[in-house]
């Protein structure tokens, strides 16, 4: 009888990395079969880009000098990150709901690779969306006025922001199980965080008490860093740390958020009960 218990055929062909790749593959297949997620993420940033950067651009005073479409591209591209929070959370919550998470948790694979697979594939989707938004920007007249390395550094910070937001989404999905609530929270984040920042308008004209909130919103540091790195117009008023050292503030604040959100998510994943 003891023989039956020793019949272990689970192989050793693989590692945490192949697990992650297998799960990334799963997500990318999802995307191919249900491309609606792309529309959900791309719609908001693209609409902002077209409406503000084309239709309304003559009504809006650009901080400093330059064209408004040059100013808002960084904001629109960063909004991809905010728009990804909801879909990321919904993906996690749906897996919990169907019991798929239970199955994954019953496997001898690392807890982190399950969430890694999810966030990395979502990052691939978000990167493609950022590319589409950039393309729309190019058509409207946005240009990068600096060198290759600065351009890449800008995109690097942008994608780090997106990745951070994806983990925030994972945590929300694990914490809130109702899809309707997640949907509302995601929509709220897109609106609240993009307008309480320098993504679309300079914070200089905002009510006094809101200004520090908007200035310290990590999104402000991210978009200011991108504008600086790409040579795009930006507010000449440089009060406070986030405006003076946007690259450092962006990197540090995103690293801090990740350092909190990833362990919390992994812990919550370990104990998450399917409903």
């Amino acid at each position: 009888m003891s023989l039956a218990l020793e019949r272990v055929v689970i192989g050793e062909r693989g590692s945490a990395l192949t697990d992650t790749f297998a799960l990334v593959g799963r997500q990318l297949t999802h995307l191919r079969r249900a491309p609606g997620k792309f529309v959900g993420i791309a719609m908001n940033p693209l609409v902002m880009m077209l409406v503000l950067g084309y239709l309304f651009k003559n009504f809006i005073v650009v901080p400093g000098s330059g064209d408004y479409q040059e100013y808002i591209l960084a904001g629109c591209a960063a909004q991809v990150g905010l728009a990804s929070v909801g879909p990321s959370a919904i993906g996690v919550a749906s897996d919990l709901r169907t019991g798929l998470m239970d199955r994954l948790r019953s496997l001898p694979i690392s807890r982190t690779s399950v969430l890694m697979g999810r966030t990395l594939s979502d990052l691939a989707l978000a990167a493609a969306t950022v590319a589409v938004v950039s393309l729309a920007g190019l058509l409207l007249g946005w240009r990068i006025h600096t060198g290759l390395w600065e351009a890449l550094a800008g995109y690097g910070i942008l994608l780090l922001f997106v990745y951070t937001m994806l983990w925030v989404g994972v945590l929300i999905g694990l914490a809130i199980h109702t899809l309707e609530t997640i949907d509302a929270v995601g929509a709220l984040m897109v609106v609240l965080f993009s307008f309480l920042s320098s993504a679309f308008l300079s914070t200089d004209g905002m009510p006094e008490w809101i200004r520090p909130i908007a200035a310290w919103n990590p999104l402000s540091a991210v978009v200011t860093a991108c504008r600086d790195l790409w040579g795009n117009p930006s507010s000449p008023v440089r009060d406070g740390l986030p405006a003076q050292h946007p690259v450092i503030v962006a990197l540090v604040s995103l690293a801090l958020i990740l350092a909190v959100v990833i362990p919390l998510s992994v812990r919550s994943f370990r104990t998450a009960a399917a409903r």
Partner: protein
Amino acid sequence: MDYAIWAEGLRKRYGDHDALTGVDLAVPAGTVLGVLGPNGAGKTTTVRTLATLLRPDSGQAKVAGYNVVTQPREVRRRIGLAGQYAAVDELLTGRENLVLLGTLLRLGRKRARERSTELLERFELTDAADRPAGTYSGGMRRRLDLATCLIADPPVVFLDEPTTGLDPTSRVLLWRMVREQVAIGTTVLLTTQYLEEADQLADSIVVIDAGRVIAEGTPDELKRKIGEEWLEVSVAQPTQRAAALAALARVSVGEPSAAADGGVLTAQLPAGMGAVAAAAAALGDAGVEVVDFALRRPSLDDVFFTLTGKSSGEGGQS
């Protein structure tokens, strides 16, 4: 004795609700344990604890020889879990679902593919193998779910209400799959709300109520505890009830009884088909017009009523 699944005094509390209040189990390798109980009795909590998804507040459990709390990874290498909801990825095809799990279980790509084809064949899913699982019927999903948890041929398999909500054909098919798996030496723990299912599949049964085991034994032992089959008769004319009762009294064990609302007459018969024939003849001789004449077997509700003195619907609340 070599136990594939063993638990002692498992307790789990959620807030002020005691989900498990001391579950003991011992399942010999290569056998099937049926865990019977109503909704909320603690069946799922027990399975999730044994499958390392939940940490018990106290108590010990070993699965395939490894401690579920201190050696979860070793346990996970040796178990298959089919939860209460068919945990298939609806956007992936049946085959992709299987290959994904095979890959995650480190079978290697080639072996994962071979194994998937094998299982699709065995679970009669070959025709639908390359369609997204979202297009499958409930029965097909369940089969895919079970196939998925067998991909790495685990020695211990947990099935949480595997046939709830299934049509009879799918149910019988699933039972066959479970039997085949047991035939090659797999140990199975399955929870169910249906006495018949436990009867069909299980070598031994435990009945769980309010988070603890309230009865255990082989299906036959348990049934004897609950009582044998009984006869239920409905008559066409209320005026004939007295005559019918008198007729039944001549053939039954003990006094037949009549439901107060003027409905069914119930009688306990001696074992064997002869007694059924005699009851029919007695009713015919008495000139009673019968509209319903049926042998009833004990249901889970009866088990509960007998064991706990309350119906299974109330069982979950206490």
